[in-house]
């Protein structure tokens, strides 16, 4: 194995070959990360050394901060024997206006407090770093009160999106017959997913890599690229006997505000992206913007905005092919290769209706899976994905599970009220209506009942029940 230590520059930055020259049993390496850049060719995936200049190595060195108006001036921390007050040395250079701006400044004593620098200027003592987006507030106002800084570049360790999709599905696989991935993705996502339903989590992942989740009638879920379908079918325009109609051209948005993850106290990471080519006929902005919670720097946020606008452009113009012959095998989700006089296009079948007796099919195709409304609705699921962090973590030693059951009691009542007449004095033989001798003879009609000879009580009469 080549020496990792570059004896010329003194850095441990030598690229390592990917294949070892001799076989040995694996050795366990704890807490190490191999950093590589993946690219894919038609036949394989290749891991290569990352571009050196894309990353700035940082160290434990600290810098003192002096707050100025919309900027900070930083100097090397002085100590016994070191009173250097010139421009800052970082990486392998001294800062000047043309240097690469560091990614983040972090409060040494409270790493959650961060500042995003905008540009570098020289100063008499130390280096001046201009900060953006302070909006007239002081550092204390935005919640940064450190006086000692470190330069940092945040790194997240994540999984390949296709692997992460598999793990998500594994946790709830009782409802699925199977899960398949057509090909591994090249995108890595570092995001904890706590207590979120699998479909939302998969749709969240698909925002990063252009994949989508599909299911078929056998209960198999697939995580495949958007442009791949179940199978390909070929349709020539001569096969379409009823004509092709294009749906009303939904005006695709050409401006979008993307809200990424705030990475510093002075950086909300909000970027507006415009598709200027289609703005000739007016600006159409996405209402409310879209949310990109894994975009933790401006480049990622811009890329997500660009990808969104590109996909939205493809989403318009769904076609309906009416009364197509020889297309009884077409199903929704298939890739339709449509040939007309001018060109061959590849579309996705969204909806298919077959006339079995006439052997004709009506097929609706679109450039992407779903309509423009689907795209917008998925992109604006920011509120749902932001609850990933709020969910209860399940990977802990003492797990809290919440169960609930219920039971009910029914109480039924059946009641009756009855009355009978009592004659405590005397008896009339023969006629129940005549008065008593030496009694007042008054008998209330409502309680009148039959008297039995020889008894002073009448029968019970039910006066109410329920």
């Amino acid at each position, binding site marked *: 194995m080549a020496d990792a230590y570059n004896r010329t520059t003194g850095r441990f930055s030598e690229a390592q070959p990917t294949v070892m020259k001799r076989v040995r049993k694996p050795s366990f390496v704890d807490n190490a990360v191999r950093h590589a850049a993946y690219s894919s060719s038609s036949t394989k995936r290749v891991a290569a050394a990352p571009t050196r200049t894309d990353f700035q190595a940082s160290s434990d060195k600290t810098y003192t901060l002096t707050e100025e108006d919309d900027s900070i001036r930083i100097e090397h921390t002085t100590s016994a024997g070191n009173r250097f007050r010139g421009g800052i040395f970082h990486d392998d250079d001294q800062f000047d206006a043309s240097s690469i701006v560091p990614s983040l400044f972090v409060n040494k004593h409270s790493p959650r407090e961060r500042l995003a620098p905008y540009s570098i200027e020289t100063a008499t003592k130390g280096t001046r770093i201009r900060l953006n987006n302070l909006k007239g507030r002081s550092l204390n106002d935005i919640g940064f009160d450190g006086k000692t800084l470190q330069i940092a570049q945040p790194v997240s360790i994540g999984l390949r999106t296709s692997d992460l999709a598999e793990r998500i599905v594994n946790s709830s696989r009782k409802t699925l017959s199977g899960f398949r991935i057509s090909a591994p993705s090249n995108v890595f996502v570092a995001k904890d997913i706590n207590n979120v339903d699998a479909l939302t989590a998969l749709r969240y992942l698909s925002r990063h890599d252009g994949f989508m989740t599909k299911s078929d009638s056998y209960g198999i879920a697939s995580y495949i690229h958007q442009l791949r379908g179940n199978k390909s079918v070929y349709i020539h325009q001569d096969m379409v006997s009823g004509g092709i109609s294009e749906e009303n051209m939904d005006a695709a948005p050409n401006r979008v505000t993307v809200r990424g993850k705030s990475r510093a106290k002075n950086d909300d990471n909000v970027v507006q992206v415009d598709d200027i080519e289609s703005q000739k006929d007016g600006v159409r902005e996405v209402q409310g913007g879209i949310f990109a919670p894994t975009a933790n720097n401006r480049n990622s946020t811009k890329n997500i905005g660009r990808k969104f606008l590109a996909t939205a452009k493809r989403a318009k113009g769904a076609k309906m092919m009416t009364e197509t012959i020889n297309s009884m095998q077409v199903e929704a989700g298939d890739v339709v290769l449509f040939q007309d006089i001018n060109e061959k296009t590849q579309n996705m079948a969204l909806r298919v209706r077959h006339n079995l007796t006439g052997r004709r099919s009506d097929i609706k195709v679109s450039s992407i899976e779903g309509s423009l409304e689907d795209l917008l609705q998925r992109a604006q699921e920011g509120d749902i994905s932001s609850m990933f962090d709020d969910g209860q973590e399940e990977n802990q030693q003492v797990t809290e599970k919440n169960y609930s*059951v*219920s*039971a*009910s*009691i*029914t*109480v*039924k*009542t*059946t*009641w*009756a*009220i*009855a*009355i*009978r*007449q*009592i*004659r*405590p004095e005397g008896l009339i033989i023969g006629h129940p209506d005549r008065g008593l001798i030496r009694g007042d003879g008054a008998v*209330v009609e*409502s*309680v009148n009942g039959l008297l039995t000879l020889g008894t002073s*009580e009448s029968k*019970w009469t039910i*006066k*109410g029940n*329920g």
Partner: protein
Amino acid sequence: MPLLTSGHRYVVDKLAEEITQVVFGFDGGIATSEDGGAGRPAITVTPLVRIVDDNTISVEAKLTTVDSFTLPLREVCIRSADRALFRYTYDAITKSSDTELIFSTIIEVN
């Protein structure tokens, strides 16, 4: 989740224990579950409460010839010492000194 038979019996025992009074009254307004008790109480009697089986209670209250009222009775309310449990209304019954009145009810717990 089914309630066990012993659970039913428990509820029946508790209910039978709680029912200690039957109130007859003059208010004939429609009985609803929001009622707080007898609208215009006339007389309170101590009922005879019997547990028929694990699911059933029988409550019986009687007014003798001693009790008579100028206004007709229209309601009856079954209650415990501190709260009303059931209320029923019926057509007016005039209770005089030459009539007896019995109110009976079966309460089932399912």
